[in-house]
C-alpha cells in the first residue's frame, strides 16, 4: 500500500493527567480509503482524532501526511483537511450560509453559489438564511456536513457524524461519504456504533 500520499500515525502515546489514553496507536490511511475508528466510551477515539488534526501533540509517536510530519507542513496539511467535531460548531448569531462563508472562506475562495449548493446537497437549502440559533440539532448537523463538503478537502476527519440524524439523513451522509471516497478522498470516521456505508472500509478498534 502506498502511504506516501496519505495519513500515517505511528505509535502515538497520549496521557491525560495520569490516564494513559492512547497506548501506541498506529494507523495508515491512503486516498480512496475509509477508516472507521471504533471503541467504547473513554477509549480515546476523540483524543486520537485531535492528535491526527494536529490540535494535540502526542507524548511520543508521529503523525505524518504525505510522508512528512504534520508539524513541518502544518499550513498545507490543514488546508487539505476538513474536521467535524461531535458538536456542530456553528455560530448561533450567523445564518447557515454566513457560517459556511466565514469558515470555508479561510480555506479556499468559494462563491456563495458553491456554498448554497453544498447546503442543498445536505438537504438544508431552506435553512441558508436562518440564524443557526433556530435550527434543530439535525439541521445543525447537516449544515456542519455542508461545511465539510464545501471545503473540498482531501482528508475528512469526522467525529460522530451521524448523531442527531434521522434514517434519511444517515442514508444521505453515507452516500456523501461514499462519493468522497470513491472520488479519491480519504476519510477517518470516529463512531461508537456500526457504519454501513455500503463501501469497503477498514476498522480500527480502540480499547480503553
Amino acid at each position, binding site marked *: 500500500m502506498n502511504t506516501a500520499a496519505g495519513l500515517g500515525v505511528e505509535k502515538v502515546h497520549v496521557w491525560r493527567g495520569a490516564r494513559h489514553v492512547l497506548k501506541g496507536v498506529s494507523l495508515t490511511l491512503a486516498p480512496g480509503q475509509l477508516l472507521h475508528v471504533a471503541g467504547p466510551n473513554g477509549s480515546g477515539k476523540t483524543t486520537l482524532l*485531535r492528535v491526527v*488534526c*494536529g*490540535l*494535540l*501533540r502526542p507524548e511520543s509517536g508521529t503523525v505524518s501526511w504525505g510522508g512528512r510530519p504534520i508539524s513541518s507542513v502544518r*499550513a*498545507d496539511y*490543514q*488546508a487539505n*483537511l476538513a*474536521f467535524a*467535531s461531535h*458538536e*456542530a*460548531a*456553528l*455560530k*448561533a*448569531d*450567523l445564518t447557515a450560509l*454566513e457560517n459556511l462563508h*466565514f*469558515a470555508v*472562506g*479561510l*480555506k*479556499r*475562495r468559494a462563491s456563495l453559489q458553491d456554498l448554497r449548493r453544498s447546503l442543498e446537497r445536505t438537504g438544508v437549502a431552506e435553512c441558508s438564511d436562518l440564524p443557526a440559533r433556530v435550527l434543530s440539532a439535525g439541521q445543525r448537523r447537516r449544515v456542519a456536513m455542508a461545511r465539510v463538503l464545501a471545503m473540498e478537502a482531501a482528508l475528512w476527519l469526522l467525529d460522530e457524524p451521524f448523531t442527531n440524524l434521522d434514517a434519511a439523513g444517515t442514508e444521505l451522509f453515507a452516500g456523501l461519504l461514499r462519493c468522497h471516497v470513491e472520488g479519491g478522498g480519504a476519510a477517518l470516521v470516529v463512531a461508537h456504533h456500526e457504519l454501513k456505508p455500503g463501501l469497503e472500509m477498514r476498522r480500527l478498534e480502540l480499547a480503553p
Partner: protein
Amino acid sequence: MTVGALAAFALLLRRELRLSFRRPDQLLQPLVFFLIVTTLFPLGLSLQLSLLRDMSPGVLWVAALLSSLLSLDSLFKGDADDGTLEQLALCGQELALIVVAKTLAHWLVSGAALVLVSPVVGTALGIPPAAFATMMLSLGLGTLTLSWLGAIGAALTVGLKRGSVLLSLIVLPLAMPLLIFGAGATDRAISGSSALGALYFLGSLCVFTCTLAPFAATIALRITLE
C-alpha cells in the same frame, strides 16, 4: 486556490465585527459599566468637581481598566463554547493571524468605544476640555495594550471555571504600568504641564506589547486547544 493571509485577515475581521454588531446589547454593556463605575466615585467621595478633578485621571483609568477586562473575558469564550475555535485553529491559516484579527476587532468595538465615550465621563469628573486630547490618546494607547495583555490572559483562562476572576487576577498586575503612565499623562495635561514623557512611555509600551503579545497569546491558545 488557497486564501492569502491578507484576505483571510480581512475575512476574520469582518466575521468578528459582524458577530459583535449582531449583539448590540453586549457591545454596550462594558460602556455602561464604565459609566457606572465612574459614577461610584462621586457618590462615594465628593460631589465637588474641583476635588474630583484631582482624582479624575485615576478614577477614569481604573474604570476603563475594569470595563475593558469585563469585555476581554469574551474574546475567545464565545468561539470556545460553541466549538468554532477549533475550526478556526484548523483553517490552514496561521493561528497568530487569527489571534491578531480577533484582538484587533475586539479593541475596535470595546477599547476604541471607550475612548470615544471618555470625554463624556471626563466632563462628569471635572476634567477640563483642554486635557481631552491627551486623555483620549493615552486611553487609546492604553486600551490597545490592555487588549493585548488581556488576549494572553483570555487565551490562558478560556476553558476554566471562574475564568473571568482569574483573568482579572493575572492581567491587572501586568496592566499597572499602563495605569501609572496613562493616569500620569492625563494628570499632567490637567495641571498644564507637558505629558509628552508619559505619552512616549505609553506609546513604547504599546508598541512593545503589540509586537510580543501575539506570540504569547498564540502559544497560550495552543495550550488551551489541547
